């Protein structure tokens, strides 16, 4: 029953999405108020039915309804309830459902929080988002229905992929999808602007908090994914330049450019067309990301079972959405191409440079990710692009960003003088160079990467602090929330940089053979293996190694990595032991038993300096994005206008 209930809900959601994508849009075109007024209730209905479908699938997981093949493939009787709930998005079909639920949620939020924008504009935004929803609902119903039955159902399910049975994995996909889908709001805004034939600064201001929120979720999602890969895959890396990772990173880069270009368009009215184009690009790249991950056209360390037919559907959908959007852009953009001029030394130029570098970086990642596909398609052989390509390109492209970042906020709009901008930052530059050299020397990290990382990181952080201090002094009311948000995010960039530079240059990493009773030395730590024993969990059993770690003859940690065997799928999984720290992580992963007699195992030991700073920096960026998005300044106009509307209603 529950599956049919979910199925019917999905179909009803599709019907409402079709109505929403057509009638109010026509109403907006003809200026028909009645049709436009339909939009909010359709949005509510659309969301309610998506939520019902989602709840139905969750209930099926909780009740072990293995006659639903998706449940049978991704759950089993031994799985704890919280993983049964997160297993809803553990596979392709369910994650699509989550995607659509979020889209419905964003639409609901747009309908609720934009009442004072011109009705035509909001209606168009909602209709465009509904059209996106139609595509995904069709996709789900036609190619990847989570409610498909297998009769008779198996007595037990196959189990959720053990890699996904992890707290990090519970939150990673929802956050990432919140980000992906959030860009649909900016996309809807761009299309609505093009349809209406104009982009007003107020509308850009309206789009900003949504973009900021989407960007913040995406940042958090990517960081969580990186953290998960770090402790779950057992390789100790934090980023692999893997196609699936790139798929989420490209929208992030475009989104970052979009945030900064929106600032210009809102404050000064310059480059509106570019902002619109970036909004289209950010969402198209999110669709492309979904396609790359789901189609299986690329070999990836993270790739899970997939189906080319689905990939084709998404690819066609993406072609239609992006193609239509770009066509509309080509037809209408010349009309909205206006904006005041600016001097070469101005905030506009600074943000333009930011945009150039971020979009070029995105293009670079896209090229590296798609190149193997192109080569294969042309019949030139099968290749893949190694991580050094991406690493080299990023160092090249991000260096100017890091150097210029602190200057940006200090620069005035329209026109400024170089000396006026540089003067307040002289102290920060001096501090960065001196402190960077001292710290690198003190840590023994005397190599180019670490030194430049420290100097660059401190320069960015000190620049952020210098800006806050100056703003604090010069204005009585203190800083606005969006200014705090920007500063936090920029400070986070500095923290992140230091983390990356230290991990990439100073990681101690070795695979070794070790038998019980032996001690190995790694980067000043002594790791002693005492024994390897058997332990049991809810749905697995494992070999567990008991390590103690000493430094300077003092025991600092007991670490117990495991090699798990999951009962149901028969999958083997490495459970690493981690001892996190602000300045270094200790990391042990078990390889395999080499010799049953002596009990020797192959063991991978890492000592990773400052690795937490990578995610710490990303967390600061996420927080900064959310703080900025919550600034009342983006919502204020609504209130004053609502007030005016109220006063107007009072009969004279």
């Amino acid at each position, binding site marked *: 029953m529950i599956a049919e209930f979910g199925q019917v809900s999905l179909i009803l959601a599709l019907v409402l999405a079709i109505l929403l994508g057509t009638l109010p849009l026509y109403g907006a075109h003809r200026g028909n108020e009645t049709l436009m007024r339909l939009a909010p209730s359709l949005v509510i209905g659309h969301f309610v039915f998506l939520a019902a479908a989602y709840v139905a699938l969750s209930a099926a997981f909780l009740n072990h309804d293995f006659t639903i093949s998706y449940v049978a*493939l991704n759950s089993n009787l031994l799985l704890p309830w919280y993983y049964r709930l997160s297993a809803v998005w553990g596979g392709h079909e369910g994650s699509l459902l989550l995607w659509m639920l979020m889209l419905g949620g964003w639409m609901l939020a747009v309908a609720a929080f934009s009442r004072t924008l011109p009705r035509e504009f909001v209606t168009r935004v909602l209709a465009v988002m509904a059209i996106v929803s139609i595509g995904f609902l069709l996709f789900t119903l036609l190619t990847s229905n989570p409610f498909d039955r297998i009769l008779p159902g*198996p007595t037990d399910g*196959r189990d959720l*992929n053990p*890699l996904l049975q992890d707290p990090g994995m519970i939150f990673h996909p929802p956050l990432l999808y919140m980000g992906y889908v959030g860009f649909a709001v900016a996309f809807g805004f761009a299309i609505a602007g093009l349809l209406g034939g104009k982009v007003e600064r107020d509308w850009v201001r309206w789009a900003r908090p949504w973009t900021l929120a989407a960007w913040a979720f995406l940042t958090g999602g990517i960081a969580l994914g990186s953290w998960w890969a770090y402790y779950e895959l*057992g390789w100790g890396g934090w980023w692999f330049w893997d196609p699936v990772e790139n798929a989420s990173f490209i929208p992030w880069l475009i989104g970052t450019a979009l945030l900064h270009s929106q600032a210009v368009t809102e404050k000064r009215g310059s480059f509106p067309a570019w902002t619109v184009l970036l909004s289209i690009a950010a969402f198209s790249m999110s669709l492309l990301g979904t396609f790359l991950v789901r189609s*299986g*056209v690329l*070999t990836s*360390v*993270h*790739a*899970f*079972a997939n189906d080319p037919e689905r990939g084709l559907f998404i690819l066609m959908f993406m072609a239609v959405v992006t193609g239509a959007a770009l066509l509309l852009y080509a037809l209408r953009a010349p009309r909205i191409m206006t904006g005041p*001029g600016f*001097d*070469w030394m101005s905030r506009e*130029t600074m943000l*333009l440079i930011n945009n*150039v570098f971020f979009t*070029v970086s995105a293009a*670079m990642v896209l*090229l*590296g990710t798609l*190149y193997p596909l192109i080569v294969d398609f042309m019949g030139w*052989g*099968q*290749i*893949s*692009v*190694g*991580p*050094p*390509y991406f690493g*080299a*390109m990023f160092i*090249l*492209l991000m260096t100017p960003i890091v150097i210029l970042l602190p200057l940006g906020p200090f620069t005035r709009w329209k026109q400024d003088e170089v000396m006026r901008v540089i003067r307040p930052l002289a102290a920060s530059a001096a501090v960065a160079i001196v402190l960077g050299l001292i710290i690198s020397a003190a840590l023994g990290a005397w190599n180019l990467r670490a030194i430049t990382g420290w100097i660059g990181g401190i320069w960015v952080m000190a620049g952020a602090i210098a800006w806050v201090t100056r703003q604090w002094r010069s204005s009585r009311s203190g800083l606005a929330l969006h200014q705090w948000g920007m500063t936090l995010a920029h400070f986070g960039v500095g923290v992140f940089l230091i983390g990356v530079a230290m991990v990439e240059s100073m990681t101690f990493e070795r*695979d*070794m*053979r070790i038998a019980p009773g032996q001690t190995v030395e790694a980067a000043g730590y002594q790791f002693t293996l005492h024994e390897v024993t058997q332990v049991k969990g809810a749905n697995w059993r494992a070999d567990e190694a008991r390590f103690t770690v000493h430094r300077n003859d003092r025991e600092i940690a007991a670490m117990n990595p495991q090699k798990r065997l999951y009962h149901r*799928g*028969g*999958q*083997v*999984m*490495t459970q690493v032991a981690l001892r996190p720290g602000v300045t270094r992580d200790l990391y042990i*992963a078990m*390889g*395999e038993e*080499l*010799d049953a007699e002596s009990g020797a195992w*192959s063991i*991978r030991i890492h000592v990773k300096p400052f690795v937490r700073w990578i995610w710490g920096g990303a967390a600061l960026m996420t927080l900064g994005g959310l703080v900025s998005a919550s600034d009342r300044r983006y919502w204020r106009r609504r209130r004053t206008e609502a007030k005016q509307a109220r006063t107007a209603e009072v009969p004279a």
Partner: protein
Amino acid sequence: MTPTRKKRLTLVGLIVLGVSAATVVAITALQDNMLFFVTPSDVHAQTLPPDRQIRLGGLVADGTVSRDPDSLAVTFGVTDGAHDVKVSFNGILPDLFREGQGVIAHGFMDESGVFRAHEVLARHDETYMPPEVMRALEEAGHPMEASMPR
């Protein structure tokens, strides 16, 4: 030309110049970091791109995995059904490395005809098979049915 337009033109020119330079650098970097995928049959036919890191893919041949008792050195055969290549590796093999399963190794062919791998990747999922390996098996005339779980 007005001064504003001149400025804008300079700006646009600089951007175009920068982007073209970046493209050149990117293409060069791309050429340097390309990894070619080869099958044991390619190795046998000696159609390898010389002096290059390559990705070798196929199935781990049954009964070929042998370990050195005192170190992490391990050797195994990779097969596409038609031909075999011996691979040597020093390190920890992935969790899902098993005889008869798909595998991809990164490394070089040495003079003695042994593939020296510095990285070995296996699948990450019970049902997943690297697409290149799947195709390589088909081309060698030994397609493998991806087993659907029940």
